[in-house]
């Protein structure tokens, strides 16, 4: 097991380099001068521009800028953003916000996805199954932006059940609505996958054999159907967890939650390569860790893939 983990961690290093370099290159390739973007329409005096360009190494070649950014990240000297914010402070403020939002939305997403998926899978072509199909189509068709603003308007402005935006009401109140929105936009895919997987497994030969052997239904369900049906589901849940950061970018911006997603949005807007790479590195590390956990869980469910 230890060797397995070590191997995965070592394999992550070159991938991490490629990912961060790629992200940095993408930000670097974005057109327009970041300092001009920050200044808006106002002219910037040459001396001020020169000082800022030097401070953020904007005149250095691409690879030098990238290496300087990586050095800052690895040594923990994050410095400040173009707008003057202390990045370490920002991380301290923002990581808990995003973690709270991500956990809550995943709980919504997983509970709804698994419940509906399992139920629809066992009661195929029933009312729930058909409603799930309809809901899936609707959720997949409605863009996140529309869903988030509609949720904000209905529950925040009209019904006044939940805060419109901001983190002032603390956990859980401030996070309920954005988490619900992320959960709704994400649960459908999980539910569909769970349903299909259950249907496939229930009809597979080994389940028929188990039934022919005279095993009890409960035993068939818990020992034969679920462990096999949930394999692809666990994979998707892992990917979901890592992808939640993408959802947070939009949700935190619309619901004005001071999390990493909002930070990422600002940084991309201003073409702050250093911040984007820092946040991408964090996301990447999370991805690696989650992938590792998924693989371990995978092994626990299915002995065939244990410690591969």
């Amino acid at each position, binding site marked *: 097991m230890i060797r397995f983990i070590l191997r995965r961690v070592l394999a992550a290093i070159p991938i991490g380099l490629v990912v961060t370099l790629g992200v940095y290159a993408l930000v670097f390739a974005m057109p327009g001068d970041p300092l001009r973007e920050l200044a808006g329409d106002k002219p910037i005096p040459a001396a001020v521009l020169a000082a800022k360009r030097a401070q953020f190494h904007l005149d250095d070649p691409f690879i030098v800028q990238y290496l300087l950014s990586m050095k800052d990240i690895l040594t923990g000297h994050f410095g400040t953003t173009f707008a003057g914010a202390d990045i370490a402070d920002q991380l301290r403020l923002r990581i808990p916000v995003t973690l709270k939002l991500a956990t809550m939305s995943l709980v919504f997403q997983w509970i709804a996805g698994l419940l509906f998926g399992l139920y629809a899978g066992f009661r195929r072509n029933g009312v729930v199954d058909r409603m799930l199909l309809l809901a899936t189509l609707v959720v997949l068709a409605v863009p996140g932006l529309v869903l988030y603003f509609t949720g*904000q308007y209905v529950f925040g402005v009209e019904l006044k059940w939940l805060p419109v935006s901001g983190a002032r009401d603390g956990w859980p109140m401030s996070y309920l609505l954005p988490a619900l929105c992320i959960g709704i936009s994400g649960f459908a895919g999980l539910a569909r996958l769970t349903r299909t997987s259950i249907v496939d497994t229930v009809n597979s030969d080994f389940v028929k054999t188990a039934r022919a052997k005279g095993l009890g239904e409960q035993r068939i369900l818990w020992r034969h159907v679920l462990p096999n049906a949930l394999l692809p589901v666990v994979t998707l849940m892992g990917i979901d967890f890592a992808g939640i950061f993408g959802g947070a970018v939009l949700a935190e911006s619309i619901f004005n939650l001071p999390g990493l997603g909002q930070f990422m949005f600002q940084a991309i807007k201003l073409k702050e390569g250093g911040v984007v790479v820092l946040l991408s590195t964090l996301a990447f590390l999370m991805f690696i860790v989650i992938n590792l956990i998924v693989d371990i869980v995978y092994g626990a469910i299915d002995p065939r893939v244990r410690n591969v």
Partner: protein
Amino acid sequence: MGVALGLALVLASCGDGKSSSGGSGSSGSKSEVIAVAADPPEYINPLNDNGTAGIGVSMAIFAPLVTTDPNTGKLLNVMADSVTPDKTSQTWTVKLKPGNTFQNGQPVTAKDYVDSWNMTAEGSNAWKNNGFFSKVDGYDALNPPTPDGATPKPTAVKTLSGLKLVDNLTFTVKLKVPFSQFGLTLQYLGLAPLPEEVRKNPDAYKRKPIGNGPYKLAAAWNAGDDLKLAKWDGYKASDAPEADSITYRFIPNADTAYNEFLAGNVDFTDVPSTKVKSFKTDAPDQWVTSVSSGANYLVIPAWDPRFKNPKLRHAFSEAIDRKAFADLVGLSDPAKGLIAPDMNGYRADACKYCDFDATKAKQLLAEAGGFSGPVNINYSTTSATGQIFAEAIGNMLRQNLGLQVKYTGKQSSEITELADSHKLDGLRFSGWGHDYPSIEDYLTPMFKSNGDANFAHYSNPALDAVLAKGDAEPDPDKAIKLYQQAEDIALEDMPLIPLYTKSNAYLHSDKIEPRVSKYVGVSALWATFK
């Protein structure tokens, strides 16, 4: 004559969303929550901030030397006792009122101004309002040219030779050349003084500003917090606002800020461009609009020989149905000059080529020898409406002049960069709002050779000469006449085609009535309470 017409237009565009009575004030004290649709500032230092959000917030904490009287449009002293030019308008004497203090109890002195301004003028500090001092004698010594990529070194010279302390409350400012409008520029809040303890270590006071204005911090202000201010009883100037406490809440997404208002959580917010058509029904009796301010243009690239003939430019201008375009933009009026209508010196009939006339447009185009190839219109993909506006203008040029048109969408900073290096193909949009209320602040930046915001890269020595004359003219009315001559020259050459002027809309709760002035616009800070 033009001024009267201008006034009529200004008044016509002045909105009147009456407030219903009742009020939702929760307590007896006068407090308001103002939503600011912008990323929260990371520090408060007016000298190092030129963004609308930061300066807006600083206005509550700091006080300017002079201000514009919202009722009369005249200059009003705040921290200054008097601001007087010498005969040539080159050296200005600023006398401060005695008895004003900073919020730490120290008196506000002439030295505070001179030292704060010197700090800002030093290029290596990279403070954002550095450019303001480029007019002051000695600026170049503090801002030597830096080779590309090099870090500007702190200069040996630390003070502007044009700034001289006379006594504890008096200092003089010597400019490089005479400038009759300098007194007006002193109302910019970005010139507010910092007290000595802040000047010694500005970084330590990023989030705990010590101002000389009507409000002070009411609670610690950490990243992610609302900015909570309380009335400071040491403020002695006569223009103190009414509110006892003010909370600024930063909501970067303007649509979210709008929803926060509709939910009753904030007392004041801007109407974002996406809600221009619906705000009157969303919040009946809770809106106000400002007089049209700022001006928006179509920029002709002066470096492109295909656009060189002024007749061609006039043909483009005559082919644009400004009324229809202003309706498309919303809350806007067709522009018939280069100056915003809320300026002293604005003439509503300044432009002779701005009335929609397709026949005349075709004729002018023929006289100019036509235009070869498609006209490219650049628009900003950063703006939600960029493409729509570009297509509207493109259709007018296509239908009324029979020209081929194409469109290019780019990020606005990229468009600016391309234009700066003369590599941009075709037309683009631009807009300008003044920093101080003088028509000179439209003409110098946009039309003077090498002006700060010379979008078209236009240059005409005749115009530069008239501007210089206006700058040297101490009589304000005569100066305006000279500036109007400059506007006439610019309209004949037409590097910028006037399009529209826009008013802004704001929503306010029943508890407050924002101050609406045709001179200084709409202010929540100076709202009255019901």
